[in-house]
């Protein structure tokens, strides 16, 4: 086990001070920080190897192509997948499924199952598609215990063609029973899209073993750069996908009479790709590969559990349960104090938390609240940081509540 102190040294931003106080970054579900290896790799690319990829002869283009494709290999290997399409993030990956698979394989009157726990990025694309194609959307409700109502899911699955489910909720940290969901979906002939934006950073995921058809996630939430993400696809669903965006790199031939497309992932990667980003992401995956993710997860989950207890003791309402596979995310509300005010006061001493609807309004509607304060931990957070957060929160409440 690497000491967290040593692990922190990889992240230059953790030296930052805010208003004269050390940064305590507790907004990791929004985006994670980047280790030096990621920053340096992009730096090195731009300083030494920058070129456009594919179909070129010169040395730099070869290096850039190799760098870009190494990202795809790293993704396939870490997540055990046959096809990894590189996108600009989770959101584009889900939109890609809606356009490339949905529009080609769904039709008037079909049903898609979503859950009330979905992020907007896994709701709005389907609402838009539903409107266009007259498709029924069925939302699996979230129960009082913050889990999905699996009975209603089983009732809703009949006749559904696609199930879109978030692996780990970005508001609650709750990890959904995706193996069970895939099993039920498959029995009923439905495809499954996993929104793994929050799980990819926190778990070891075996895509093939889970048996989902699609899995979407973002680099920036797993120590990688902004502007890049991926969609993993199994072979069966990949073959059913039609091109989404058209342009350079995704074609085989173009004439004024029509075009033919590439056969592999590039078919869905139109235009100059995210080269520097892919090179950075490769390093982020290497960094994650080097971490004992189970031990680190357990450690920060313990901190989250402790934090939940302290917050409850202070009279807060905590939205989360923190089972073993849940993420170290703690959403809470003070009975009277405005959440944004609280976040401003926290920021005054360097504590970065997020407030608001976290892009999950349907979930908040179900919980009958309009937002939460969210603390989300990652592997470079220490228990000491969480303790100092609690101490300062108490000070705030004494002075302001």
């Amino acid at each position: 086990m690497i000491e967290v102190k040593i692990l922190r040294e990889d992240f230059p931003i953790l030296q930052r001070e805010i208003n004269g106080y050390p940064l305590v970054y507790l907004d990791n579900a929004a985006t994670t920080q980047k280790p030096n290896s990621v920053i340096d790799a992009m730096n090195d690319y731009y300083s030494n190897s920058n070129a456009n990829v594919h179909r070129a002869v010169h040395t730099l283009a070869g290096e850039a192509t190799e760098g870009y494709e190494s990202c795809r290999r790293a993704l396939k290997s870490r997540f055990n997948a046959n096809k990894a399409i590189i996108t600009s993030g989770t959101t584009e990956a889900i939109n890609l499924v809606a356009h490339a698979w949905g529009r080609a394989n769904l039709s008037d009157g079909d049903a898609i199952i979503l859950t009330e726990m979905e992020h907007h990025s896994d709701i709005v694309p389907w609402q838009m598609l539903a409107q266009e194609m007259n498709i029924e959307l069925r939302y699996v409700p979230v129960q009082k215990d913050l889990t999905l109502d699996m009975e209603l899911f089983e009732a809703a699955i009949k006749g559904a063609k696609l199930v879109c489910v978030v692996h780990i909720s970005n508001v609650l940290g709750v990890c959904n029973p995706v193996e069970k969901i895939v099993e039920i979906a498959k029995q009923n002939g439905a495809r499954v899209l996993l929104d793994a934006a929050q799980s990819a950073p926190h778990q070891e995921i075996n895509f093939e073993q889970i048996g989902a058809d699609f899995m979407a996630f973002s680099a920036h939430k797993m120590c990688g750069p902004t502007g890049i993400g991926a969609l993993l696809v199994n072979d069966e669903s990949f073959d059913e996908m039609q091109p989404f965006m058209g342009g350079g790199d995704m074609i085989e031939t173009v004439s004024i009479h029509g075009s033919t497309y590439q056969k592999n992932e590039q078919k869905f990667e139109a235009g100059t790709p995210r080269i520097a980003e892919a090179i950075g992401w490769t390093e982020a995956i290497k960094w994650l590969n080097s971490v004992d993710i189970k031990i680190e997860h357990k450690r920060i989950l313990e901190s989250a559990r402790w934090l939940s207890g302290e917050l409850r003791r202070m009279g807060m309402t905590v939205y989360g349960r923190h089972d073993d596979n849940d993420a170290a995310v703690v959403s809470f509300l003070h009975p009277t104090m405005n959440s944004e005010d609280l976040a401003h006061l926290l920021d005054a001493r360097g504590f970065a938390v997020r407030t608001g609807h976290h892009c999950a309004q349907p979930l908040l509607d179900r919980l009958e609240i309009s937002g939460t304060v969210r603390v989300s931990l990652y592997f470079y957070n220490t228990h000491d940081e969480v303790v100092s957060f609690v101490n300062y929160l108490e000070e705030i409440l004494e002075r302001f509540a």
Partner: protein
Amino acid sequence: MNYSAELLELIEEFQDIDDKMERLEMVFDLADEVNLLPVEQWCDTTRVQGCQSEAHVKVEVLDSEVNFYAGADSKLVQGLMGILTMAIHGAKADLVLSLTPEFATEMGILNSLSPSRSNGFRNMFDKVMTEVKQQVD
């Protein structure tokens, strides 16, 4: 700028504080200066756009003197309203119209706030100015 003595004093007080938390504390305290606009009167015409929280303002110009009523679900926002209250409530309309949001920058409160909050302040200021102008014209 034609700042009132009271406003000038407030600006100086703010400038004397280094610590961001203390500055926020002072803003909180100023929430009490607001002439409260009762929640029942909050509506689309009183709403300040672009605020993350609910923020409502109402202006009346009587005998060319500005009366300012406000309320918000955030105490911090209400504190900003308190500052604006001190700057304009009871002042002559032409004096009020000569103000710019500069004074808040000078206090250092705008950079103590997230961009969305400080934009909220600017939106509130603009809304108030527009309404004063309308009632004067």
